[in-house]
């Protein structure tokens, strides 16, 4: 196993997950959250991450470098 392929310990929607590095995509975060995108418009979902003082967002197709302990929030924001 190459060093950049090592597993990272993260949290997705509060639940601990182990995922392969070195980056994680919008789509993989949703998969780890138990959301099946098949037949759905990915724009229905938001993915946000935070780690320490840093935070960011992923849009469909985007990825972010993984760090142990990163937290992800994945879900919709379409209700009024």
């Amino acid at each position, binding site marked *: 196993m190459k060093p950049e392929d090592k597993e990272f310990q993260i949290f997705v*929607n509060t639940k601990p997950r182990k995922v392969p590095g070195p980056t994680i995509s919008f789509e993989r975060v949703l998969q780890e959250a138990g959301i099946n995108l098949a037949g759905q418009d990915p724009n229905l979902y938001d993915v946000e991450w935070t780690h320490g003082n840093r935070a*960011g*967002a992923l849009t469909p197709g985007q990825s972010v470098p993984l760090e142990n302990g990163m937290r992800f*929030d994945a879900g*919709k924001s379409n209700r*009024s």
Partner: protein
Amino acid sequence: MPESPTAPSPDVQRLVDEGYTVSIEGDYIVVDKVPYVSAPDTVSYGAIISAYKTHNGIAQVGNNHTVWFTGGVPCTPTGQSLANALVADTNRATVAGRQVLCRLSYKAERPGMLDNYYNKLTHYIRKLQGYANVIDASASAIGNGSISIRQKRSVFYYPNMAIAREGLDAYEEKLELPKIAIIGLGGTGSYILDALAKTPVQEIHLYDDDVIESATAYRMPGALTFEEAHQGMRKAEYLRDLYGRMRAGIESHPMRIDQSNVHELDSCDFVFIAIDHGPSRGLIARHLADKGIPFIDVGMGVDRIADDVKLIARARVTSIGSETKALVDRLPVADDQDDALYNNIQIAELNALNAMLAVILYKQKIGFYADEMNIGDLRYIVAWQRLSHSALEQV
């Protein structure tokens, strides 16, 4: 009900009868042509302005000693500044439509200064004119006597006197947009109205075809009676009547916006979209972006963590203007049938937060609050109590 313009109260009439040049500009009273010493051996003229309030046609001074002055800080005849004696504050401001150079707070030794506007204003005029008369005995604020009354039409049925008292009209005026629409009056839309109704926007148009049900009452600001929650009133009409108790200019449109009527929004200066239905969001957002009408779209989501019996939730505010049209393509516009959880759990605090974030961002976009980050998009994640934003150049 709005007060109708009436004859000036007796103290104001006395100023006019004695020959002063008086004007009433909405919440201010102005005496023009007041002589003062502006430099050694130099007499100049300025206007004294006071916040002005009436009750049943009688002017009410309250306990405010201060006035604004359009001249510089007055001096003694030899040119010594009266800044300390008059407790002058030299912040420039626009008050009653005039540029003021200072604010004076000079309390009288004898009582009665605040009994009426005649006493208050002549107290300052005597002080300023007294020094001017040492240089020029004929300098006087007294002339032929005149009054002009310009009632500023307010949308509110009772004035917010704090604004006049502090001379904050230049800030308040930024909120006087002609026309705003709120599309969708669920929890979030009704809280947007709650904040927006208290700003002096001239017209607020409410679009929603839903009727109030008992569950709705758990999402809206305030407390509905049993009858209000059960008699099948349209949300748009109920909210128009509720906020119509304090202000004019709220109009209800109990209908859905679709392709046939979306052009009704063309005359709006700003629009809030607070709806669930994705395809409608897409239709309205694309139409507004094409017309160059700035708008904010809001939305939230809530999900179960079943084994913990806890919820995760998030709120989103997206501001779209001419430079951020591309954000329209990122909005959730798909038809989403999966709404069982959101519809059955009441989280009014998140509706309120989502709405308040939207109204604050709106106030930044119209220049009321500073917007140092040029924010295009806000996300609030409950589990982290974290608010993050994307600046426009990043989105």
